[in-house]
């Protein structure tokens, strides 16, 4: 249990820092963000589990919004509900043997869709859905980047013996993701 809390807190911190740091990157359209912090959520949904992905996605939205000073603004609301829905559908599809790219693309499309639903509720008008193709085209780029980052993340966590494992044993079949999941599930 303690190891699980430590792992989740480290991943939440990483995700929040990514959320805040990506405000410095330029984006082609003024109202968007790249969304690289969702790569951490994708990794958790893929390797650890649904509950943890939900916790980290909501926590990183709130903490990142507090860092960048947009708490409870429309952009925070869209990001919050989008991240939660993306975590949900990624965790769901992770059980059916999809790869990282498929999970990331489905999460990105769900994220955009839910964001537009939230904007429609704010505006009380469904005309906002005309932004969907633009968001999807840019989402294709960031979803591929997120899938790449998440696929590398398990290996990096495992190579560094991420100190919350408290163990020195080496992998038998070089499968960090499965091993990580087993480690975590022992402490449930």
């Amino acid at each position, binding site marked *: 249990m303690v190891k699980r809390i430590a792992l989740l807190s480290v991943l939440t911190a990483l995700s929040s820092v990514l959320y805040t740091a990506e405000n410095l990157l330029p984006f082609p359209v*003024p*109202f968007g963000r790249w969304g690289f912090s969702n790569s951490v959520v994708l990794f958790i949904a*893929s*390797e650890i589990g649904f509950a943890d992905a939900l916790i980290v996605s909501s926590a990183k939205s709130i903490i990142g919004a507090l860092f960048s000073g947009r708490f409870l603004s*429309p952009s925070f609301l869209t990001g919050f509900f989008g991240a939660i829905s993306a975590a949900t559908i990624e965790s769901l599809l*992770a059980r*059916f*043997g*999809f*790869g*990282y*790219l*498929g999970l990331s*693309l*489905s999460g990105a*499309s769900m994220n955009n869709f839910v964001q537009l639903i939230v*904007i429609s509720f*704010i*505006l*009380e*008008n469904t*005309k*906002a859905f*005309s*932004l*969907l*193709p633009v968001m*999807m*085209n840019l989402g*294709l780029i960031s979803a591929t980047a997120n*899938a*790449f980052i998440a*696929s590398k993340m*398990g290996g990096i966590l495992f190579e560094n013996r991420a100190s919350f494992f408290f163990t020195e044993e080496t992998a038998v079949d*070089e*499968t*960090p*993701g*499965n091993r990580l999941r087993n480690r975590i599930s022992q402490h449930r």
Partner: protein
Amino acid sequence: MRKFLEKKDLLVFFVFLAIVIFPFIVPKNIGNKVVVEGRDFKKILSKPGIYDIVENGKFLMKVEFTGEKVRVVESTCPLKICVKTGWVGPGGTIVCVPNEVIIYFEGKTDYDIETW
């Protein structure tokens, strides 16, 4: 360990592409009237000119209409996203979230009578 690319991912990828391409296939019915729609007003622009958009006596934005294109000249919202959108032709929309205003071209309807 999950792989980066599985065969199943191609299915998701093609569905994604279908969603992206879908708006380009659907025939657009484009009119030449601009509708400025707010929370509790709706203004239809048919003649070229510069219009002040006022809601309940509060000045929101200036909209310029040339007959083919529309832009927001100035606005009272903090981020000025509607101004940065620039000129928008038929089929495009300008959305201003803080002022809750949407500007779009009215599509031609095939009906003679609209019961509203």
